[in-house]
């Protein structure tokens, strides 16, 4: 059933027609003059159905075969059929950058999207969270596809698919903040050992004593006993696995689970792809905000012909539209960038401004200092600042640092919550602190729970023990139970996760046959590491 189809069925779009290519070059010149710095960008045109296909593959024309992409494709196709959404553009973080445009859109739409793409590409190239991503991912993805196809040929579709399903179930168990730590590759490498203690840990405590008193103050029998205990303790710690709580559970499995070579390779492929996509999840608001800021700036200053204005305005407004209960990342991002630019142009930052409690004075602050006329590139303090922001922030730090009560007020943000009585989402309040906390919570770790490996040799029986760091919200029990089963499929020994449910610490376990849960008490052995 599976044939080798490398190279023949790959999706191919068409290059831009001459006039559009010329426009793209002009827009690129404007973008460069404005200070955007991007990889060479290759544009291709696709029809809507092809766009849906590529989007289902996460933007890549080549992915390994899996039904999940088919499911996503069906969802996108349906969404398009019902008029609920249409994909106009896709950009791939790659050098050269690939960008896909939908063929049957107005000329002005294509120009807008091209300007938008250059800013995305600038963001990929310059934002520090992307610094460690593979810029040859296009080839790498194709490579992954080839490898997994080969395994399917050798081991059968069902077998490989089943294992890919398991890996997908665990794919969020990575540590996206570890991009700056050199990620370890390969299963041969061991987890970093805990640094050896400087003092002799296996030595018992000896109290100072005069020689003739020594055997009373430090009785040899007790000393020997203590020494033995200390040595055992040291041995235990030395053999502790992992040496400290570890978030990159996929890596831990790669290094320590009893996997066949092909399984280890599949797991490493899915882990690598998860790491590649992680920064995009961490910078959604910034990235879309930045791209919208620049397509708006470039189009309104240079790109628009008079007869294109209305179409442009309609589509730009559509992109930034908000609806109840929905936070539009494009809108939040562009407004926050503009707010930062305005604040830095008018000096509304720093201790002096922060301390000022006179609302009138705050409102009037720096009035008249705004740059006159058109600013190009980094030609104003505000522009200087937003270029710095796009370089070193991610969504969490971006909002944490720059969200102000004035901004929340101006954008009419509110906090809503599920109301069990009416079974609907209900607006709760407009309190700045609450809104900010909620936003940050939604973005922290992409709203994924923090899970750590605490023990890879639990109870000295080779069992795997995970822990959930509780930051206000419980784990979903049903999902946790199902995920444990998949974890067991990799670890092949009993697996446990320690989580807090309704304020009670609970240990969920799966031993290959049945799922159990028990309240944590003294009868439960502690794991090698604890979460503090």
């Amino acid at each position, binding site marked *: 059933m599976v044939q080798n189809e490398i190279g023949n069925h790959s999706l191919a779009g068409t290059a831009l027609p001459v006039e559009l290519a010329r426009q793209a070059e002009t827009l690129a010149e404007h973008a460069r003059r404005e200070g955007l710095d991007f990889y060479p960008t290759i544009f291709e045109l696709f029809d809507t159905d092809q766009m849906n296909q590529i989007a289902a593959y996460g933007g890549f024309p080549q992915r390994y*075969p899996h039904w999940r992409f088919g499911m996503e494709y069906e969802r996108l196709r349906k969404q398009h059929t019902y008029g609920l959404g249409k994909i106009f553009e896709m950009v791939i973080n790659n050098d050269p950058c690939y960008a896909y445009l939908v063929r049957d859109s107005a000329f002005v739409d294509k120009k807008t999207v091209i300007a938008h793409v250059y800013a995305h590409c600038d963001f990929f190239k310059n934002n520090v969270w992307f610094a460690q991503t593979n810029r040859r991912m296009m080839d790498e993805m194709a490579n992954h596809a080839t490898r997994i196809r080969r395994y399917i040929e050798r081991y059968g579709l069902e077998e490989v698919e089943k294992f890919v399903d398991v890996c997908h179930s665990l794919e969020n168990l990575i540590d996206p903040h570890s991009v700056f730590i050199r990620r370890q590759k390969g299963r041969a490498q061991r987890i970093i050992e805990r640094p050896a203690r400087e003092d002799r840990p296996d030595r018992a405590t000896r109290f100072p004593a005069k020689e003739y008193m020594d055997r009373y103050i430090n009785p040899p029998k007790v000393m020997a006993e203590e020494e033995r205990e200390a040595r055992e303790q040291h041995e235990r710690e030395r053999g502790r696995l992992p040496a400290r709580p570890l978030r990159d559970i996929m890596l831990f499995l790669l290094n320590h689970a009893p996997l066949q070579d092909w399984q280890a390779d599949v797991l490493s492929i899915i882990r690598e792809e998860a790491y590649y996509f992680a920064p995009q999840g961490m910078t959604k608001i910034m990235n879309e905000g930045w791209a919208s800021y620049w397509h708006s700036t470039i189009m309104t200053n240079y790109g628009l012909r008079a007869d294109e204005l209305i179409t442009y305005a309609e589509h730009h407004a559509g992109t930034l539209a908000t609806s109840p209960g929905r936070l539009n990342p494009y809108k939040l991002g562009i407004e926050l960038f503009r707010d930062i630019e305005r604040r830095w142009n008018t000096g509304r930052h720093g201790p002096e401004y922060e301390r000022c409690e006179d609302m009138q004075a705050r409102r009037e602050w720096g009035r008249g200092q705004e740059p006159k006329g058109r600013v190009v590139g980094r030609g104003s303090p505000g522009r200087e600042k937003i270029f710095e922001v796009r370089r070193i922030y991610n969504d969490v730090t971006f909002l944490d640092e720059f969200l102000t009560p004035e901004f929340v007020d101006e954008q009419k943000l509110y906090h809503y919550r599920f109301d069990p009585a009416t079974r609907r989402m209900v607006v709760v309040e407009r309190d700045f602190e609450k809104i900010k906390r909620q936003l940050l919570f939604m973005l922290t770790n992409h709203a994924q729970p923090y899970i750590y490996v605490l023990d890879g040799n639990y109870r000295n029986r080779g069992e795997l023990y995970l822990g959930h760091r509780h930051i206000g919200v419980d784990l979903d029990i049903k999902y946790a139970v199902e995920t444990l089963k998949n974890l067991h499929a990799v670890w092949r020994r009993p697996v446990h996760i320690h989580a807090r449910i309704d304020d009670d610490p609970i240990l969920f376990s799966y031993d290959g046959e049945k799922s159990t849960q028990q309240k944590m008490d003294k009868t439960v052995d502690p794991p090698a590491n604890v979460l503090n």
Partner: protein
Amino acid sequence: MKIHKDHQRFRQIVRGKIREDLRKFLTRGELLGREGKHLISIPVRGIETPHFRYGDNSDAGVGSGEAQPGDKADADGEGVGPGGTEEGHHILEVEISLDELADILGEELELPRIQPKGKKRITSEKDRYSGIRQTGPESLRHFRRTFRRALRRELMAGTYNPENPRIAFERRDKLYRSWKTVRQPQSNAVIVYMMDVSGSMGDDQKELVRLEAFWIDAWLRRNYEGIESRYIVHDVRAGEVDRETFFRIREDGGTRISSAFKAARDLLENHYETSEWNCYLFHFSDGDNSSDADSRECCALLKERLLPGINMFGYCQVASAYGSGHFINVLHEHLSDQDNMITTRVNTKDDIYDSIKAFFSKGK
């Protein structure tokens, strides 16, 4: 295209899961009321990939707009929060076409395809809104397009005021939706459902009938381009009702089954020429007819007037605490030589599976 392989694989998995659960769907009302015109949404277990994720107490979020505390924040029926946006967290709803569902039913029950009789294809005309034109009734005005033309005109004329952005439409701005007439194949099959609604038929019995009728519908619709359904209820008298009433109506009193057969006869004679139409008659009752004389009349009606022209008459007897359940025996006694009559007994929901199988295993 590669995605089509992945898509096919996904559909294959979905079909497999539905097939596994088919007996459950056949015996529980889960699918009732979920069907649209062509599609049905089916809850499918075990397709979604589980992750360690937050539970329900994270259902909160941030929105924007003019709302006051206490207002609903989910006009779209959902919000964005860390808990995800899907309704029903644990079961994925998959839409499949009614035809596909019927195919799964057919595969699972090993039903042969029906050979329709009558070659004649009847077509009917239908209007479909698909274009835009300059003239038309105001009710069909395309607001967005009209607005854009008016805005452009006012911008060019210099009458647009950004401070007071009011746009007045003129005759030449206006655009209207227009329609095309398309011909569609029309049905050449009819199902006549008859149900005993006398005092002895309770809610449980009607639930059985509803489920049975759902699957009968599904299978016959798969086999004909289009199909009409008619509904007759009876106690001592019979009358035609609409679908909603059919499943809800509750009467008291006795049972005279012949009244329903007479009503069906009249319906077929007046509207459905049996030489052109594929006719299916189904009768649901607890089998407690009021007199033997009436039962004999029923047999005569069936034998002489109904059975000769139609594809099939299905009699489905549901168990009831009150009824004697004798009617099915009468039918067996008098009409056992009629091969287009099929009788089944449905005592509990578990019997629906076999009942459907019995009705359609002959491929009529």
